[in-house]
């Protein structure tokens, strides 16, 4: 629905610019045998889609005209559909006569239609892309038509704009979903949402060289393989920005191992000191090492005589450590016997930079020392310590004695993905299905829709923008969540405009998106702050703000202005109501206190600063459109 409104408003607002564009069209270098009128038609469809994107429109045109013409009935229909739009006429002031003229002019020009068709053939490489390119502009045309003065012969949803060679299901793609496919939509949504949460790295098969992450996985694989099969002691740091697939790489490697190792997962966020970390190690070890697995010698080595759970030296001893908090020397000796357990051990330290803050880094020291002194053979198994972090300077944070025990191996993951790669991943994600829960008919349509949407130039632009700033695939996936969620049986297909909205909410977040919808007293206070800043007060007490608002109301009351019998002066607002509003704004942290609350200072005398940008205040008041507030703002600006 949003899309439709947007498109129509574009058609009306942009008409002047469009006019100039269509006039310019004949001058374009791409002009050959084609008629200028066709040019306009093709252009229009592109222009409406993205008024700002000039180049892409021109490109499309060029492609259109390079191609020999082959007439078709379908494309003619397209032209007819476009014609009634007021925006397409040259003179927007008199749309009707022009359109009539336009239609009259059509018959002698059979050429426009062929180009449309040929574009389909040449532009798309694959079948799917082919379809999407041809259909998306058409869809736009149909939607444009709705607000036009002459009602369209066919109602928008079921317009058979699809190319005739498409399967009959194509027809449904534009309308609401038939009843029997509703469940399919729900399960498709579930599947896609699930997949969006763990977008898999799709190996770039066509690239000749490996990507950074693939190299990282390979290196890590080799490292862990050495630990597991050859009993090596290995340590490494896995560095990479957020969301670059560090954890994913480790999990991938562990699942690829031939033998199941003991995996100990620690996180610097949770295990905030060595004591907690030690306890967690002991818990995880005892959960994974069953006494039956323990070799006889360890069982003998254990102090306890009973052949029960207590056999594992890690079951009790570390717990005692927790209770007694014995010196770190003891801890060291306990960690040192990790390699004597029956299986190789992998210790994953998430957020390892936080472990470096622990006193004397004793845990890191013990782990790395054990790793370094790990000798293959002699019944001892290997041990690997993998530190995962986003901080590049983690190595510097290590103490000298710890650093000297660290192998110095650093594996990097990278979060730079290209838009094309991102598209590939997203395509796989969006097309993922749950087993057999989705109707064949539906999934065919869905996949077409996905292909169509991913070739949309607007989406390409969004993805390119996002990829140029962050390569975090998770944040890219997040963009698609809200459009997928918004799918309803009435509007079951993804659209580019929804993604644009979602990109604004998820990625390029405006600071206070709701500002213009705030209530009258809140906006009064914001304008008062604006005025105070003009007067040179960066921080204000409530008393001052109140004084400003009161003055404004008084000034407005002195000269009452009436419009259609209603006063348009500022509405009275009592001090108490303003105070209540003020407190609400504080709790929304729009006003931020400069000092903490104090017993001796009244709340109304605490100084606050405003976290809203001055420009935003201005814009939101203008957007709000409350006439008296606008006047207040103008006065506030004038007082400068």
């Amino acid at each position, binding site marked *: 629905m949003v899309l439709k409104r947007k498109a129509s408003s574009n058609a009306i607002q942009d008409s002047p610019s469009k006019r100039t564009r269509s006039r310019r069209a004949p001058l374009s270098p791409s002009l050959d045998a084609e008629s200028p009128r066709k040019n306009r038609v093709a252009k229009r469809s592109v222009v409406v889609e993205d008024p700002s994107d000039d180049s892409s429109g021109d490109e499309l045109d060029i492609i259109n005209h390079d191609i020999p013409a082959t007439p078709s009935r379908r494309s003619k229909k397209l032209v007819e559909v476009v014609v009634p739009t007021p925006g397409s006429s040259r003179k927007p002031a008199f749309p009707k006569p022009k359109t009539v003229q336009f239609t009259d002019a059509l018959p002698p020009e059979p050429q426009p239609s062929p180009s449309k068709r040929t574009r389909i053939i040449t532009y798309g490489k694959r079948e799917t892309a082919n379809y999407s390119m041809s259909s998306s502009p058409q869809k736009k045309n149909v939607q444009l038509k709705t607000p036009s003065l002459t009602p369209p012969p066919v109602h928008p949803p079921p317009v058979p704009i699809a190319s005739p060679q498409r399967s009959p299901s194509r027809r449904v793609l534009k309308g609401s979903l038939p009843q029997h496919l509703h469940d399919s939509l729900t399960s498709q949504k579930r599947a896609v949402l699930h997949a969006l949460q763990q977008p898999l790295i799709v190996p770039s098969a066509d690239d000749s060289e490996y990507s950074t992450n693939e190299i990282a996985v390979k290196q890590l694989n080799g490292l862990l393989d050495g630990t597991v099969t050859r009993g090596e002691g290995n340590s490494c740091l896995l560095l990479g920005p957020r969301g670059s697939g560090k954890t994913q790489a480790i999990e991938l490697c562990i699942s690829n191992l031939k033998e199941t190792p003991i995996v100990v997962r620690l996180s610097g966020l949770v295990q*905030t000191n060595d004591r907690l970390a030690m306890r967690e190690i002991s818990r995880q070890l005892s959960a994974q090492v069953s006494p039956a697995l323990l070799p006889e010698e360890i069982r003998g080595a254990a102090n306890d005589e009973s052949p029960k759970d207590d056999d594992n030296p890690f079951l009790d001893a570390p717990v005692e450590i927790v209770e007694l908090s014995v010196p770190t020397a003891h801890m060291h000796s306990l960690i040192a016997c990790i390699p004597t357990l029956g299986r190789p051990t992998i210790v994953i330290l998430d957020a390892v930079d936080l472990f470096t803050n622990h006193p004397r880094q004793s845990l890191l020291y013990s782990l790395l020392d054990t790793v370094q002194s790990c000798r293959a053979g002699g019944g001892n198994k290997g041990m690997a310590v993998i530190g995962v972090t986003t901080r590049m300077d983690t190595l510097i944070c290590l103490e000298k004695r710890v650093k000297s025990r660290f192998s110095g191996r650093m594996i990097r993951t990278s979060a730079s993905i290209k838009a094309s790669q991102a598209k590939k991943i997203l395509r796989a994600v969006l097309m993922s299905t749950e087993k057999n829960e989705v109707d064949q008919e539906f999934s065919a349509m869905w996949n077409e829709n996905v292909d169509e949407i991913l070739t949309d130039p607007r989406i390409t632009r969004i993805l390119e923008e996002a990829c140029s700033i962050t390569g975090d695939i998770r944040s890219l996936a997040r963009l698609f969540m809200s459009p997928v969620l918004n799918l309803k049986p009435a509007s079951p297909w993804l659209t580019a405009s929804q993604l644009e909205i979602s990109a604004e909410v998820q990625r390029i977040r405006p600071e206070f998106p709701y500002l213009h919808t705030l209530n009258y007293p809140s906006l009064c206070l914001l304008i008062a702050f604006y005025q105070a800043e003009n007067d*040179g007060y960066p921080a204000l007490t409530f008393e001052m703000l109140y004084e400003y608002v009161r003055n404004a109301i008084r000034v407005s009351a002195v000269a009452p202005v009436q419009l259609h019998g209603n006063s348009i002066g500022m509405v009275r607002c009592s001090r108490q109501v303003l105070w209540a509003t003020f407190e609400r704004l504080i709790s929304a942290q729009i006003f931020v206190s400069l000092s903490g609350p104090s017993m001796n200072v009244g709340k109304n005398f605490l100084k606050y600063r405003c976290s809203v940008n001055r420009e935003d205040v201005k814009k939101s008041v203008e957007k709000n459109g409350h006439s008296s507030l606008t006047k207040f703002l103008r006065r506030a600006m004038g007082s400068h």
Partner: protein
Amino acid sequence: MNSLNQVVSLLELSPPPFIFINDPIAPKFTIQSLLIALQNKIRLVQIDGISCFTPRLLYDTILNGLSQHTPSWDDGCKNWSEETSNDSMDSFLRALKALHASLCAANSEQRERLALVIEKPERLKERMPDLLAPLTRLAELTRIDLSVVLVSEVRWEDIRPPLGAAIDPYYVDIPVPTKEIIIEHLVKVVEKNSSNSDLASTSTMPHPYDPALQQTYKHFVHILTDVCFLYTNDPHEIQYISAARWPGFIKPVLDAHRMNVEAAEGEDEVEFERPSAEVLLRLTRHFKPSLSLALEQLYPRLTNAVDWARANVSDAASLAKDGLILGDAVMDDEEEEEDTVNEMLLSSPTRSRSSRRIQEQKAAQDLSSSNLKDTLPLSASLPRLSQFILVAAYIASVNPVKSDLRLFGRGADEKKRRRRPAKRQMANAKPKSGSVKIPQRFLGPSPFPLERLIAILGALVEENDSNASEVNDSRNNPSDLLDFRIAGERTDYEVTRVGVYASIAQLTSLRLLVRTTSADKLDGLSAMFKCGSGAPSSYETILDLAKGLGVPLPDLIWDNAAMG
């Protein structure tokens, strides 16, 4: 509500590990709607950032809530988990995993999905800053199907832990509620409660929330929302005001019905019918002025709904004037006449009826409001000397020291005191350099030494206290052992009496004055004071006090310039 529906379906289908909902106006309302929508669909626990102020409380609340375990007094208020799962984050994570496993075991056909809805997460950030980052990564740390939903008035950017420790949320912005949503909510609440047996069972008479009155209530809500929407868009606030006003609003209709029933004397059933359009119009006209008064009193919570409703019961006379005594009210007729006579005697004919009614209501409010608690004691309950001290303290707090001599100094030539002409061009006066000087009045009281207070008090008493000067004159006779020859000497003597110091001490203990130096310093000469927060430092209150004492306060304030 579209965004909220999104969250609901997201949590139902496949939630991301971390969702952040930013609702600047009514987070409570959002949470309630969310909880209602997700009831019985997923396991949900609501956590309040205020009540969970330690990690232990937080862990226990989460675990008990998810397991739907209520600690009872009989079994020693045990928590859900037997072992100590609340001593640290990793114990909590283990308990959470165990809980999830047990839930999955109990319910084998479908996977259990857990969700934590955290209200006021900004409080968690203040209290337990280390906890927020692991909380957002809870799903990753426990590796179970779990989603954390933070609902806050504050933006995520203001809460986010440093160093990018927390994962990025899925953002949801709840738009400011529109009028339609508020009306819909209010009507829905009443619909839900009208069938409540507690209300219905008390008598056969219709109660204010009778289902028959639903249409009338809808009409009332429309009017109320029109009045309040400009000032607040919190559905709960408007609901509160509605709860205070609606019973009074509909009372005339109910009374009329009761009278009809009594008149019929049980012979035949009197059908209760909803008020006609005309009656509705009259009710609206009668009560509309009180709606905005209700907003001004109840939205800042100057009083509570019950007290307000009690103070704003419309009397029969004013109701009758608007034609709102329905039915044949024989008994009321005489009273009504009396009332009208009284009112005609009391009120001037020029004043319009409605404005008088507003004034009456206002007067009633003034008595009930808590404003009273601030203002009344100062002017009525304090002794005269204490009032002088408060005025003097205010002057000392607001004026700069250098102004004292010019305001209060009296030379031998009896030169009239001069006050610096107030600079009215505050707004235009740009500072030469540095920051702009803000009048002290807006910055709150500044501390002053005790001697300055005494000196100003002396000047005030000398010039303005007519009682004292009379006494001065009458007692200026040789019988008195003391002999005051110099003008003002007697006042000087009076204001340094022990009684004055005792009054200051008393005012300090009332916190009308605040001692800024430590109290254990016995050396009284260096003690610094300032006006207490609230009433004693508000200009209006002190102005009232000064008027009562005959002190021309505006002339004694050094910098009286207004802002802006």
